[in-house]
C-alpha cells in the first residue's frame, strides 16, 4: 500500500513534471506573499516585508531541489546527468578508457564463449520429453536382452535400443554408405519425440517378417530427398531392398550417442541379429517411472543381471549394469575438460577484473584533487560514490558491448575447431541466455570492482588535501597497497593457469612420443562394407577380398592388405578365448581379447614388428591348419615367460568344433583405441579361415610410394570395377587417424594455452601499471635520491625490487594453490604428475621473466629522471 503510494507519487512527479514544478512555484510564492502581507499588516513597509520574507524563507532553489529529491524525481535526472558526465570524462581520457574497456572485453569475451559451450553441452536439457527421467548404461545389449529387461524391469516405463549399421543407399548417383539405425519400436516411445511428418515405428512394424518401412532423420530428408513434403509412402532403396517411408523426424531429433541417417526395425532388416542373444551390440535407453530413483533402478538392474546370468550363463555371465543419467552419459567425455576450461576463463576474468579495479584506483588517485574540490563545494558522499560507480558501470557496459562480438568470434572458432566430443552438440551459438550472462558479468564486474575505488574516491579529505596546498596530491597509501595486493593475486592466479597449461603441453608431448606400434607414414585406410544380400556366404567374401588385394598389389608402388578394424579408427571387436591344456574355466568366465581378421601382409604393410615366430601368409587359407598370431600383451598376460609358439587356442562357445588354432607368431603391441591406453591382448586370424559370415566390413590399408590422391582414386576404381555397388566410406590416412585421436587433447591444450597467454599479458599490464604509477608518484623522491648520490643501478634496484617483491609473494601463493588445484585435472593428464616439479619450475621462471620485463620498462624511465627537473617539478 505504502509502496504503491510512493510509486504513484514518483510516477506523478516524474511524468507530470511540468505540473509539479508549477505547483511548487505557486505554493512557495503563496507562502512568501502571505508572509509578507502579514508583515505589512504589522506595520512593516512593503519593500522591507518582501525582503524579510525572502530572507527568512532561505534558499528557494535549494528548497525546491530538496522537494524534488523528496519525491524521487531526482533519481532519473541524476542518473542521466551522471551518465552524460561520465561519458564526457571517459572521452577526455581515451587511453584509460580504451585500456579499461579492452581489459574487460578480454576477460568477459572468452568467458561468455566458454559459457556458451557449457550452456549448450552441460546445462541445456537434452531434446527429449522429460529428459531427467532418461537413463542409459555403458554396456550394450542384444535385442533379446532389451526385451527381457523391458518385461522384467518394473521400474522402467519404457526402453529401446539402437545400433548404427552401414547400409548402401541406392537411389543416389553412386552407391552411398549411410548409417542406418537398427532400432526397436521402443526407442521412439522412450525418447518421446513426435515425428515431424507421418509416424514412427509401431509395434506391428517392429515384428519378425513385418513390412519394410523406414523413418528418416531431418538431415537425410533434406540432403538426399530435397525436403520432399510428399515423401510419406514413397520408397527408398537400402542395400537390395526397398523400404517405404512412414515418417520424418524433426531437425532437433538425434539419437543420443550415435550419428544416424534413418531408422529401420532390427527385427525386419536383420532378423538373425535380433534372435541372437550373445552379441551385445545395441546401445539402450530407458525411462524411469515417475518417483523411481536412480539407485532403485540400479538395484533392480542388479537383480535382473543375476537372473539373466543364471538363465543364460554362456551369454550373460559378465553382466554388470550401472544405470547413469543420460545427460551425464552424453556429456561425460567433455565434462572434465569443460570444467577446467571454464575455471581457466574465470581466472582470466578475475585477472581482467583486478586490472580493471587497479586502473580505476590509479585514476581515482589522479582525480584526487577533483574529488577534494567537489567535496569542498558540498558534494555529498553518496553522490560522489554514485558518480564513480556510474563511471565504472559505464565502462563495464561498454566492455560488455565489445566483449559480445568477441565472444561470438570465439564461439565460431571453438565450433570450427570442435573436437569429436562436441560434434554431437550441433547448436552451439550465442543465445539470449548467454548474452544476458555476458551482460550480467559485465555489470557485476563494474559494480563490485568499481565499488572499492568509488569508496576510496569519496573519502577525499578536504582539510588534509588543502594542507598539502600546491603539492601534487598523492594517492592514499591504502589505495596503492590495494593495487599491489591485486597484482599479487593476479600473479598467483596466472601461475596456476600457466601450470595447468604446462601440464597439458607436457602430457601432449609425452602422448605424441608414444609408439603407436605401427608406422603411419603414407598409409591410407579405406573402409569397405560388403552388402549382406550378395556377400552372405563366406566363400563369396573371400573371393572378393582375394581378387581385390591381387589387383591393388599390382598397382605400381602400392602395398595393400586388409584388416577388420585398423588402429585408432574407433572400431574393435572382442571374443572370449580358451587355452588348450589348461584347467577348464566356467562358462562365461573366459578371458576377453581383441580379435582382428586380416588378409595379405598386414603386419608388413603397417610395419608392425614381428617379435617371435612368423606372420600370416597366403598359405594360411581355407582347408589348411587353423593359425593365429597374438600380440605381446597377450603373450605377457597369458604365457608369462613361456614360449607361446605352437600352443593352441580356440574361441569360447564356438559352433561345432572344437576348432583349435595354433599360435604361429607374436607381434608388437599396437595402440588400437587410444595412445593413452595400454594395449589389450589381441588375436589376429586370417579372413580366409573365419567361419563368421557377419564379418563383412573391413579396411583396406595401402602403403603408397607418395601421398598422392591419384593412387587413392585408382584404389577406388579397382574396388568399383569389382563391384560397382559397394559403398566406400572413410578414406583416411593413418596420420590423420593418429591426429584425430589426439585432436581433443590438442584442442584443450590450445585453448588453455590461449587463455594462459591472455592471463600473462593481462598480468604484465597490471604489474606495469602499478609500477609505472608508483614511479610517476615518486619522481620527486627519485630526484632527491639521485641528487644525493644514488646511482642509476640503485634506482633500477629500487623500482624492479618492487616488482620482484610482489612476484615473490604472488608466486609463493600461486605454487601452493597450484599444488592443490592441479590435482583436479588428473583425468586430462598423461604420463605427468599434477605436481610435476619441472613444469612448476619452468612456469615460475617464465613468470619471473614477465615480472622483470614489466617492471624494467618503468624502471628505465625512473633511471632517466633528471634530478634538477624532478626537484623543480612540483
Amino acid at each position: 500500500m505504502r509502496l504503491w503510494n510512493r510509486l504513484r507519487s514518483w510516477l506523478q512527479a516524474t511524468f507530470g513534471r511540468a505540473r509539479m514544478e508549477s505547483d511548487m512555484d505557486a505554493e512557495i510564492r503563496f507562502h512568501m506573499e502571505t508572509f509578507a502581507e502579514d508583515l505589512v499588516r504589522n506595520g512593516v513597509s512593503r519593500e522591507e516585508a518582501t525582503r524579510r520574507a525572502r530572507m527568512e524563507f532561505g534558499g528557494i532553489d535549494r528548497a525546491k531541489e530538496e522537494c524534488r529529491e523528496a519525491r524521487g524525481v531526482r533519481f532519473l535526472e541524476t542518473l542521466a546527468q551522471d551518465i552524460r558526465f561520465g561519458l564526457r570524462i571517459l572521452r577526455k581520457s581515451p587511453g584509460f578508457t580504451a585500456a579499461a574497456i579492452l581489459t574487460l572485453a578480454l576477460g568477459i569475451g572468452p568467458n561468455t564463449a566458454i559459457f556458451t559451450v557449457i550452456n549448450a553441452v552441460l546445462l541445456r536439457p537434452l531434446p527429449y520429453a522429460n529428459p531427467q527421467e532418461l537413463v542409459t548404461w555403458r554396456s550394450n545389449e542384444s535385442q533379446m536382452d532389451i526385451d527381457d529387461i523391458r518385461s522384467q524391469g518394473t521400474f522402467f516405463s519404457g526402453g529401446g535400443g539402437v545400433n548404427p549399421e552401414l547400409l548402401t543407399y541406392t537411389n543416389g548417383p553412386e552407391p552411398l554408405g549411410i548409417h542406418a539405425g537398427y532400432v526397436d519400436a521402443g526407442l521412439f516411445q522412450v525418447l518421446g519425440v513426435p515425428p515431424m511428418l507421418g509416424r514412427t515405428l509401431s509395434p506391428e512394424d517392429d515384428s519378425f517378417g513385418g513390412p519394410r518401412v523406414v523413418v528418416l532423420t531431418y538431415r537425410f530428408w533434406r540432403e538426399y530427398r530435397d525436403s520432399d513434403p510428399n515423401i510419406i509412402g514413397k520408397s527408398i532403396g537400402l542395400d537390395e531392398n526397398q523400404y517405404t517411408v512412414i515418417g520424418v523426424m524433426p531437425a532437433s531429433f538425434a539419437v543420443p550417442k550415435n550419428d544416424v541417417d534413418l531408422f529401420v526395425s532390427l527385427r525386419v532388416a536383420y532378423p538373425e541379429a535380433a534372435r541372437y542373444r550373445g552379441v551385445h551390440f545395441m546401445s539402450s535407453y530407458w525411462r524411469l517411472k515417475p518417483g523411481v530413483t536412480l539407485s532403485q533402478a540400479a538395484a533392480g538392474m542388479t537383480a535382473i543381471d543375476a537372473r539373466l546370468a543364471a538363465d543364460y550363463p554362456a551369454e550373460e555371465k559378465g553382466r554388470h549394469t550401472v544405470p547413469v543419467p543420460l545427460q551425464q552419459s552424453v556429456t561425460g567425455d567433455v565434462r572434465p575438460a569443460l570444467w577446467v576450461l571454464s575455471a581457466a576463463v574465470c581466472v582470466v576474468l578475475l585477472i581482467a577484473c583486478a586490472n580493471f579495479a587497479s586502473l580505476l584506483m590509479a585514476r581515482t588517485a589522479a582525480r584526487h584533487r577533483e574529488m577534494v574540490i567537489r567535496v569542498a563545494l558540498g558534494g555529498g558522499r553518496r553522490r560522489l560514490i554514485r558518480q564513480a560507480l556510474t563511471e565504472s558501470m559505464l565502462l563495464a557496459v561498454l566492455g560488455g558491448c565489445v566483449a559480445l562480438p568477441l565472444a561470438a568470434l570465439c564461439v565460431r572458432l571453438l565450433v570450427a575447431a570442435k573436437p569429436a566430443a562436441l560434434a554431437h552438440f550441433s547448436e552451439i551459438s550465442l543465445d539470449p541466455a548467454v548474452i544476458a550472462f555476458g551482460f550480467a558479468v559485465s555489470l557485476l564486474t563494474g559494480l563490485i570492482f568499481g565499488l572499492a575505488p568509488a569508496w576510496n574516491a569519496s573519502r577525499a579529505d578536504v582539510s588534509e588535501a588543502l594542507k598539502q596546498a600546491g603539492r601534487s596530491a598523492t594517492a592514499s597509501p591504502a589505495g596503492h597497497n590495494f593495487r599491489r595486493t591485486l597484482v599479487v593475486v593476479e600473479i598467483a592466479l596466472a601461475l596456476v593457469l600457466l601450470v595447468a597449461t604446462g601440464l597439458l603441453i607436457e602430457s601432449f608431448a609425452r602422448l605424441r612420443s608414444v609408439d603407436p606400434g605401427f608406422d603411419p607414414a603414407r598409409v591410407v585406410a579405406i573402409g569397405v562394407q560388403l552388402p549382406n544380400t550378395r556377400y552372405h556366404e563366406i566363400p563369396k567374401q573371400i573371393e572378393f577380398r582375394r581378387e581385390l588385394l591381387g589387383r591393388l598389389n599390382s598397382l605400381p608402388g602400392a602395398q595393400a592388405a586388409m584388416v577388420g578394424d585398423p588402429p585408432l579408427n574407433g572400431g574393435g571387436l572382442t571374443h572370449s578365448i580358451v587355452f588348450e591344456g589348461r584347467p577348464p574355466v566356467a562358462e562365461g568366465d573366459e578371458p576377453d581379447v581383441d580379435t582382428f581378421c586380416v588378409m595379405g601382409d598386414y603386419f608388413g604393410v603397417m610395419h608392425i614388428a614381428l617379435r617371435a615366430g612368423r606372420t600370416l601368409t597366403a598359405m594360411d587359407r581355407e582347408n589348411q591348419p587353423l593359425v593365429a598370431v597374438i600380440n605381446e600383451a597377450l603373450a605377457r598376460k597369458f604365457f608369462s615367460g613361456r614360449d607361446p609358439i605352437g600352443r593352441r587356442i580356440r574361441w569360447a562357445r564356438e559352433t561345432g568344433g572344437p576348432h583349435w588354432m595354433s599360435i604361429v607368431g607374436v607381434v608388437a603391441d599396437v595402440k588400437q583405441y587410444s595412445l593413452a591406453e595400454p594395449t589389450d591382448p589381441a588375436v589376429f586370424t586370417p579372413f580366409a579361415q573365419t567361419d563368421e559370415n557377419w564379418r563383412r566390413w573391413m579396411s583396406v590399408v595401402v602403403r603408397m610410394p607418395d601421398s598422392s590422391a591419384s593412387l587413392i582414386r585408382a584404389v577406388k576404381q579397382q574396388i568399383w570395377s569389382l563391384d560397382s555397388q559397394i559403398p566406400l566410406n572413410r578414406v583416411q590416412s593413418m596420420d590423420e587417424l593418429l591426429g584425430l585421436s589426439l585432436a581433443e587433447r590438442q584442442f584443450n591444450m590450445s585453448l588453455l594455452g590461449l587463455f594462459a597467454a591472455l592471463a600473462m599479458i593481462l598480468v604484465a599490464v597490471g604489474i606495469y601499471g602499478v609500477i609505472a604509477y608508483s614511479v610517476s608518484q615518486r619522481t620527486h623522491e627519485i630526484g632527491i635520491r639521485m641528487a644525493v648520490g644514488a646511482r642509476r643501478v640503485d634506482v633500477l634496484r629500487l623500482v624492479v625490487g618492487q616488482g620482484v617483491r610482489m612476484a615473490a609473494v604472488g608466486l609463493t601463493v600461486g605454487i601452493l594453490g597450484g599444488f592443490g588445484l592441479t590435482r583436479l585435472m588428473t583425468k586430462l593428464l598423461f604420463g605427468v604428475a599434477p605436481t610435476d616439479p619441472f613444469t612448476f619450475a619452468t612456469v615460475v621462471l617464465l613468470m619471473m621473466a614477465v615480472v622483470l620485463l614489466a617492471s624494467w620498462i618503468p624502471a628505465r624511465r625512473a633511471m632517466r629522471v633528471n634530478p634538477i627537473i624532478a626537484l623543480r617539478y612540483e
Partner: protein
Amino acid sequence: MGKQIGLLQGTLDMLILKAVSLGPLHGYGVLLRIQQISKDRLEIQQGSLYPALYRLEHQGWIASEWGESENKRKAKYYRLTAAGKRRFQTETEKWNRMAEVIAGILHTTPEEV
C-alpha cells in the same frame, strides 16, 4: 518572546503531522500553527518546511489538494491520512518514551548512581 531553540533532528516531521492533525492547513498555515502551539519558542527554517511536506506526502502520511485560502487565494492544503494518523500515534509514543528515558538519565544525581 523567549530565546528560540533549534529543532532536534527528525522532529519537524512530527510537528507537521501534529499541526495537520488538527485540521487541513496550507504550508504557511503549518508554519503559523507550529509557531502558535510552541508559543514561538521553536525556530523553524521556512525553507525546510516544504521538503518535509513533500516527503511526508510521498510516504502517504499526508495528502494534498488545492483550495482557497482566507485571503481568497489559491493554496495547497495538506491533511492527515489514516496511515499518517497511525504513524503520528506511534511516533508520539516513541517520543514520549524517549523523552522520559532521557529526562530520567539527565536528572540522575550522583547519589543515585
